[in-house]
C-alpha cells in the first residue's frame, strides 16, 4: 500500500528526525560521557550547554519538542536514548504511573537547596523524589500592538469576530480546555458532563475565526502579522519582545493558569551520573539565572535571584503582582479518568 508505507515512513521520520540523538544514544556505551536532553523549544540560553560541555567534557545531545503529549507519546512508545526530560507539573503523575521516570537517588544533587521552598513538596511530587523544578510561567494572551488598537484584557477577545483569521490558540488540551472551563465559570476539577460539553462548544464556536492551533510557531506568526492575538506562554512572547518591541503579553482579567516545568530522569537512562551532573549544574544559582534571563520565564531557584536581570525581576508579566497572582491557579492533579475526559474533549474540538 503506497499510502501506508509513506505515512509510516513519515511517522518514523518525524519520530526520529526530532531526536537526532536517539541513534547516538542507542550506540553510545556507558563509558562515553553524554546526556540526551529532551526539552521544550526555546527553553534554554544558547551558551549554557556548550559551556557545561566545555567544563565537564560531557556532550549534551539536545533535542526539543513543542507538544508535551507528543513528548509523552514518544517516551511511552519506547523511544530509547533520552536521559533527561522537562515535563510540566500535570504530566508528572502520568509519567510516574506508567513507570517512565526514575526518582532522583537521594543525596546525589548538591544544589537542591537552591530551590525556593514554595516549589518544593508540591501536590504532583509530595516528597520531591521525581522532580527538580526548572522554570515556571503562565498562560495568557500575546499580541502585536502594531495591528490592534486596544490592549486585550479578556479571554473573550480571542473570540472577537473583529479579529477573524488573526487569532492563534495553543495546541494542547490543558490550556485550551482549561481556559474554556474557566471562561464558562466551571472549576478546574469539575467532573460534570455539562461543563465539558460547554467548553467543547465554546472552543468549536471559535474555529471559524481561528487562524491556527500552534504551540511552536505562533510567536513568529505574531511577529510577522500572520496573527494579531495568540493564546501564549508568557516567556515565549516576552523573549521575542526584546527584539520585536511591538509584541506584548497580558494575563486576562478572568485569571489563568500558572505552571511549573520540571527536570525528570528518564527510566532506563544509561548516562545517569552525567545526567545528575547536568541537573546539578542547571540549578546552580548563576546558571539558573542565566537561563531565566534568556528565556524570560520565572525561575523557581532562590539562589538565582541575585543574578536575575532587574528588567526581568521588575517585569509584572514575568513575576505578576499579588493582585494578578491571586487570580492564577496551579494545574490540579486530575485522576486518570478525568484527565482523559480533558483529552477527549480536546480531541473532539480538533476533529469538529
Amino acid at each position, binding site marked *: *500500500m*503506497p*499510502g*501506508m508505507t*509513506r*505515512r509510516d515512513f*513519515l*511517522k518514523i*521520520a*518525524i519520530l526520529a*528526525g526530532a531526536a537526532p540523538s536517539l541513534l547516538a544514544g542507542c550506540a553510545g556505551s556507558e563509558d562515553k560521557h553524554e546526556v540526551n536532553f529532551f526539552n521544550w523549544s526555546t527553553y534554554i540560553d544558547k551558551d549554557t550547554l556548550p559551556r557545561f560541555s566545555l567544563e565537564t567534557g560531557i556532550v549534551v545531545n539536545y533535542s526539543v519538542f513543542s*507538544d508535551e*503529549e*507528543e513528548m*509523552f*507519546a514518544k517516551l*511511552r512508545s519506547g523511544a530509547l536514548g533520552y536521559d533527561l526530560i522537562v515535563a510540566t507539573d500535570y504530566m508528572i503523575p*502520568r509519567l510516574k*504511573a*506508567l513507570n517512565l521516570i526514575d526518582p532522583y537517588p537521594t543525596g546525589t544533587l548538591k544544589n537542591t537547596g537552591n530551590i525556593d521552598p514554595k516549589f518544593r513538596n508540591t501536590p504532583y511530587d509530595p516528597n520531591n523524589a521525581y522532580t527538580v523544578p526548572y522554570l515556571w510561567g503562565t498562560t495568557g494572551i500575546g499580541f502585536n500592538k502594531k495591528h490592534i488598537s486596544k490592549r486585550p484584557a479578556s479571554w473573550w477577545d480571542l473570540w472577537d469576530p473583529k479579529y477573524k*483569521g488573526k487569532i492563534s*490558540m495553543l495546541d494542547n*488540551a490543558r490550556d485550551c480546555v482549561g481556559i474554556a472551563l474557566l471562561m464558562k465559570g466551571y472549576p478546574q476539577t469539575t467532573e460534570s458532563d455539562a461543563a465539558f460539553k460547554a467548553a467543547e462548544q465554546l472552543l468549536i464556536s471559535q*474555529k*471559524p475565526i*481561528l*487562524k*491556527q*492551533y500552534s504551540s511552536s510557531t505562533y510567536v513568529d506568526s505574531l511577529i*510577522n*502579522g*500572520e496573527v494579531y492575538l495568540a493564546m501564549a506562554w508568557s516567556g515565549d512572547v516576552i523573549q521575542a519582545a526584546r527584539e520585536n518591541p511591538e509584541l506584548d503579553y497580558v494575563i486576562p482579567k478572568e485569571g489563568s493558569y500558572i505552571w511549573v516545568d520540571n527536570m525528570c530522569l528518564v527510566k532506563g537512562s544509561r548516562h545517569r551520573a552525567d545526567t545528575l551532573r547536568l541537573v546539578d549544574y542547571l540549578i546552580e544559582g548563576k546558571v539558573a539565572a542565566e537561563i531565566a534571563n534568556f528565556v524570560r520565564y520565572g525561575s523557581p531557584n532562590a539562589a538565582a535571584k541575585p543574578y536575575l536581570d532587574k528588567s526581568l525581576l521588575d517585569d509584572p508579566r514575568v513575576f505578576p503582582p499579588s493582585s494578578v497572582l491571586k487570580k492564577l491557579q496551579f494545574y490540579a492533579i486530575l485522576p*486518570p*479518568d478525568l*484527565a*482523559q475526559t480533558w*483529552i*477527549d474533549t*480536546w*480531541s*473532539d474540538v*480538533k*476533529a*469538529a
Partner: protein
Amino acid sequence: MRGRAKKFLAWLFSGKSEKASHLLILPASFWLAFFLIIPIILLLVLSLAQRGPYGTVIWHPTLDNFRRVFTPLYIPIVARTLLYCGTAAVICLLLGYPTAYFLSFYAGEWRDTFLILLMIPFWTSALVSIYSWIIILGRDGLMNSVLTGTGLLRTPLDVLNTPFSVILGLVYFYLPFMILPLYSSLEKIPKQYMEASYDLGAGSFQTFLKVTLPLSLPGVFAGFILTFVPCLGDFLTAEFLGGPRTYLIGNLIENQFLMAQDWPFGAALTAVLLGAMLVGLYYYQKLEAAEIA
C-alpha cells in the same frame, strides 16, 4: 570452491529452477512479513483492544472502536479528505498530462535531464519541503513580497493555513506519482499508430483524441490511484500548511497516537482506511483487467 560458487550462481540465475526462484524471493518475503504483514496483524489486534487509564492498552476484545469510527462526528473529516485528495489528484492530472506528453513527444535528447529534474524535489526531505512552502506562502513570504513589491496587490494574501495551501502541498508532493506512470504509458504507444492515423487523414488534435488519449488511459488511472491513495493517509501537509478547519483523516489518526493516547481507536481508524483502500484497489484492478480484455 570457486567452481562451486560459480555453479551455484549459474543455477540461481538460470531462471529455470523453482527452488532458485524461492531463494530469490526470500529477502522480499521476509521484508514483507516483518514490516507489512505482522504490523498489520498487530494493528488489527490492537484495534480490538480497549484504552485504559493514562492511555494504556487493555487486552479485552471489543468492537467499540469500529463503532466509534462510524459516528457522525467523523463524517465531515472523511468528506473533506475525499474532497481535498480528489481535487489534488485532478489538479495533478491536469498538470501532469501535458508534462508527460511533452516528455514523451517533445523533450528529445533533454528527456533524461527533465526526468531527473522532476525527481529532485522528491528526494528532498518532506519536512524541508513543507517549511519551504511556509516560507514561500507566508504573509511576509516570497509570494507576497513579489505580489506587493511589483504593485500587483496592495495587501498581502493570507493563503497559509487554508484549504488552498493544503491542496497545493498535496499536489506538490504527489505530482511525480502522476507524471511517471503517464509518461511510461505514453512512451509505450507505438509511433506507427499515430502515423497510421495521420495517413488516414486525421489531424493532430483528432489523432490525440482518438488514438493517443485512449491508449494512455491506463496511465491516467494508475496516476490517479498513485496520487489519490497516498493523499488519503497524508497528515504532514495538513498539519503544517493547514489551519484549524483542514483536519484530515491522517491527522485524526496521528492525533490518536500522539495526542489522545487512544491507540486502539487509532488502530481501528487505520484498519478502516486500509480496508477502504484495498477495496478501491481491488475494483481498480478489475476495471483495468476488463479494459485490457
